[in-house]
């Protein structure tokens, strides 16, 4: 649209002339570069009417402001969405904590679930950092606070929870790798367990006010027909729960062995356990690089720790059936610890547990072992191997134990 502007030239400037129009108002009009009027001339200009650009600024400003506000609002919506956590990583060592992560695996928030954890993550600035950095930082801190160390392997349980409908990626795998990497860098040994869970599972755990990992322990225990009060569980860390579970299962095993309980019942119990394990799609793996030997070793380490725990509990237990064997077991330990290298010591320790449990288990539960196999292939294989040996020897006394230790040593060599 064009508009005619008539007026007297009041002033000539580089890009425009100021006209006084017939009605007495003033107009600034861009002029033709090749026809400059003189002051006082009466001229007519045709001007394109584009109110946005040629109109005065007072009209443009509110429009620009409005556009800016709209833009800001839109940006806000899109900016805040990724701030919602997409994943949750619950880590239990002894300090248990939860990391909420966005889609790009940047940490949004870190919450400690017990006092230990709060102490560790205190003044830890994680917001927006990559998960690998944060995990490494946590591992360093844990090491400094002696939750992790080189000679007493800890168990790290991590649960990967998908909060939104993301296709399950290899994230759980990579979490494990990240942990392994930082553990290796810090020369710390630990056993890793990584699970993947849905959001529902997390919610259930939250309902009973438990961390995801202790909720799993609780479930396993209750499936094992161990009677646990949920309130007790709430106050205990994963480590303690593990001990309780061990204790309980041992006690049961012992009972079974003694009373030669019906295999059907046991099988039923086992089946339920399997179910829970299936539901939680367990990955079990070792800390170190998956070479066969290393795996074995870590497996043994785990066993060793379990054994240690058993040993600790032993005196307090005072159960008549077991007490004898355990004492002998304890006696046997110092002898072994004389062996020169640290590694060997560990191995021997590790070899103990089978001696403790398996001789009793071995006879009544050959089937059981087979059933377990598909779920936990590596572990089961090794255990089976161990058991096989123990069965070969088919003795319940210490000499067998020693023999096994020797066996494993030979194997390692």
């Amino acid at each position: 649209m064009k508009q005619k502007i008539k007026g007297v030239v009041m002033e000539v400037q580089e890009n425009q002339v100021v006209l006084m129009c017939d009605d007495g108002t003033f107009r600034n009009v861009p002029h033709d570069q090749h026809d400059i009027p003189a002051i006082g001339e009466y001229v007519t200009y045709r001007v394109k009417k584009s109110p946005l650009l040629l109109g005065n600024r007072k009209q443009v400003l509110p429009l620009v402001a409005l556009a800016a506000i709209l833009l800001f609002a839109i940006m806000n919506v899109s900016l805040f969405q990724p701030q919602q956590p997409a994943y949750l990583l619950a880590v239990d060592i002894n300090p248990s904590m939860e990391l909420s992560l966005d889609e790009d695996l940047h940490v949004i928030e870190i919450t400690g679930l017990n006092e230990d954890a709060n102490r560790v993550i205190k003044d830890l600035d994680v917001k927006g950092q990559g998960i690998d950095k944060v995990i490494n930082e946590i591992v360093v801190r844990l090491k400094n606070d002696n939750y992790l160390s080189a000679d007493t392997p800890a168990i790290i349980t991590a649960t990967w929870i998908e909060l939104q409908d993301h296709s399950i990626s290899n994230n759980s795998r990579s979490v494990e790798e990240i942990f392994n990497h930082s553990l290796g860098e810090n020369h710390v040994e630990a056993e890793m367990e990584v699970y993947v869970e849905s959001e529902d599972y997390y919610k259930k755990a939250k309902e009973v006010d438990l961390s995801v990992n202790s909720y799993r322990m609780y479930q396993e225990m209750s499936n094992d027909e161990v009677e646990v009060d949920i309130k007790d569980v709430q106050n205990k860390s994963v480590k303690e729960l593990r001990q309780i579970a061990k204790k309980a299962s041992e006690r049961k095993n012992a009972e079974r062995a003694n009373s030669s309980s019906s295999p059907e019942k046991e099988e039923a119990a086992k089946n339920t356990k399997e179910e829970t394990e299936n539901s939680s799609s367990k990955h079990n793996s070792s800390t170190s690089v998956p070479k066969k030997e290393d795996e074995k070793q870590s497996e043994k380490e785990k066993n060793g720790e379990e054994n240690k725990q058993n040993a600790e509990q032993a005196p307090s237990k005072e159960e008549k059936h077991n007490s004898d064997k355990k004492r002998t077991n304890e006696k046997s330990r110092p002898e072994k610890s004389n062996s020169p290298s640290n590694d060997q010591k560990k191995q021997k320790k590790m070899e103990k547990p089978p001696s403790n449990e398996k001789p009793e288990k071995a006879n009544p539960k050959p089937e059981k072992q087979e059933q377990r196999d598909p779920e936990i292939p590596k572990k089961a294989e090794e255990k089976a191997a161990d058991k096989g040996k123990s069965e070969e020897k088919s003795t319940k006394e210490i000499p067998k134990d020693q023999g096994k230790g020797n066996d494993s040593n030979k194997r390692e060599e």
Partner: protein
Amino acid sequence: MKQEDIEHIINEIQKGNELRREQLIQYYQPYILSVVGKVCNKFKTWNDDEASIALIAFNRAIDTYDPQKGRTFLNYVYLIIHRELVDFFRKENHYQNVMKKGDKLLEANHVKESVKQYHQDQRISSIAAEIIDLDDQLSQFYIRFEELEAHSPKQKRTRKKVLNIAEEFIQRDTLVEQLFNRKQFPMKEFLKVANYRVKTIEKYRKYIIAIIIILLHPEWKNLQTFLRNKVRGEKK
């Protein structure tokens, strides 16, 4: 500045008042530049050769102006500057550019045409004189023409209202006196005697000052017609 004033000042300058000469040049600066732009068909700044030549020409025009020959001063200035610039273009081989202008001038040779041309020139130069005067007055209030667009009323109704404000204002001599003494709009005093909203006056303040100045100079017939046009237009 009335015709007599200009003649008087030029007379003084021709007798040797250099200070007056400076003032006069300063006063006509915008006009000189606009003439340069007009003749060159291109906007020129004071940095251009043409502007310097025009300034020298203007200086000579002051020395040679003779009111007895029947030309207004501005008309004479325009003539001199135009001639000087054409000379300059010829020297610089810009001849062809300027020929068009020359043709135009030659065409106007017929008597009727030339009389018409003469009247038009007279009119233009008288308006120009008024505008230069207005510019000079407004500069005291630090108002430039280019600002006035933003402060002009856009609607007929507001235009009328603003004109009423201005007319009411000039009827009170004390207010006018205050305006020129303080060089700013005596808002408080004016609001005491007239019932207008501060916001309205503040919005159009610069424009109001401009038309007050125009209304206070009845000798600016051409500019007056613009404002009177407006009043008439509204009455229709």
